[in-house]
């Protein structure tokens, strides 16, 4: 039986573990009054659980050797230049050399400048590192994500486990800028690093709050260290340039 698309989305969020507490409560209420929704929710949960237990297969033995033997002799990787070709939306693609130059600029010029600008209420005295973006790969597990609808394009946030810390990564694929505020329990977390991909506005850190402004399609990461028990929810508040109404979301640290 077809399920209302809004409820379908709610069920997906719930099964993915991305629903906010109020959304979970609403879904429970709907499911208790609508048997079809209740059965759909249960079914989606069951299949997600089954799939989580499906074993990952090992690659056939000797595959690495076969691949290496099959590489064209005396060749080097090619496919053109280092420069990206297309990608999803021209604004999203970061020119590698541009990024490298920007990284160098940030590291050598903007970094000290940013650090110098970090006033007493900003990260300087708190030992917050400001530096280039650290790319993510499989070793850094994504533990949660949030999508916040804003005029023009949504803002995306991810929670990534990174060593002993947590990284809140923010990106919005739009031309206009984005103001970001991350709210957290100051007894539970402290800001330990700020890693914009390129130039970002000054990071402001207050009691349980960090905020900055970033440019369109820029990816920025805020690193939080756990310093004690406390509230695990990290609240996000995003405002697109020219928009009066901010969007809000949350990430839950496991």
């Amino acid at each position, binding site marked *: 039986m077809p399920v209302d698309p809004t409820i379908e989305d709610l069920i997906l969020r719930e099964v993915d573990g991305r629903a906010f507490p109020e959304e979970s409560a609403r879904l429970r209420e709907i499911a208790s009054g609508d048997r079809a929704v209740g059965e759909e929710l249960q079914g989606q949960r069951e299949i997600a659980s089954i799939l989580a237990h499906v074993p990952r297969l090992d690659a056939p033995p000797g595959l*690495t050797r076969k691949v290496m033997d099959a590489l064209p002799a005396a060749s080097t990787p090619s496919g053109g230049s280092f420069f990206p070709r297309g990608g999803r939306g021209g604004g999203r693609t970061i020119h590698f050399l541009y990024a490298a130059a920007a990284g160098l600029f940030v590291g050598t010029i903007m970094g000290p400048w940013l650090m110098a600008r970090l006033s007493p209420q900003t990260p300087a005295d708190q030992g917050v590192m400001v530096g280039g973006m650290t790319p993510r790969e499989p070793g850094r597990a994504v533990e949660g994500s949030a999508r916040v609808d804003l005029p023009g394009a949504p803002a995306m946030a991810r929670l990534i486990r990174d060593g002993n810390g947590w990284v809140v990564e923010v990106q919005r694929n739009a031309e206009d800028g984005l103001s970001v505020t991350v709210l957290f329990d100051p007894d539970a977390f402290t800001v330990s690093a700020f890693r914009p991909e390129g130039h970002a506005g000054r990071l402001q850190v207050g009691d349980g709050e960090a905020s900055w402004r970033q440019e369109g399609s820029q990816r920025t990461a805020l690193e939080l260290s756990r310093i004690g028990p406390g509230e695990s929810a990290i609240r996000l508040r995003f405002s697109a340039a020219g928009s009066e109404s901010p969007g809000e979301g949350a990430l839950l640290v496991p």
Partner: protein
Amino acid sequence: MSEAAGDLELIDRCLGGDRDAFALLVERYKKPVYNVAYRILADAEEARDVTQAVLIKAWQNLGRYDRAFRFYSWIYKIAINEAINALKKTRRLESLEEAGAMADGTDPERVRAQAELGDRVQRALMTLKAEYRVVIVLKHMLDCTYDEMEWITGVPEKTIKSRLFTARRLLRERLVQEGVR
């Protein structure tokens, strides 16, 4: 050093012609790529060939890799495309209605419970259309996020979610028919 930094460093070395660096990338990614191929194709030999083709293609096109994206997203995108192309060659894009027959050759007593679950899920997966198989594999085997799935498949996130919802529902129906709960 994070794995990410390791990837980028290895890629730089590859671009300088260092094959040993590429062997390390192959070691790192052959398993997830093989799983993508096998879960979509349900044929170990074809999956091995596709995995090999994906990794060779990765080497040949490494210069086109866009660092704005994660390397694993890029290589999974190649893997999905190669697996789908392999399906097209054998016209198996649609569901395999006869997939249930694959159960006949399986001796349940000689496989462990988890492997048996994997077999049953695989048989049920093969009864789904390829577009449904792909979203299940990306979400549940590779733990991709929706925006990564959007980038890898080129399909809008809204459609991805709708497909995933339907795919899970269909998969569950098939598994219930097989007695898996």
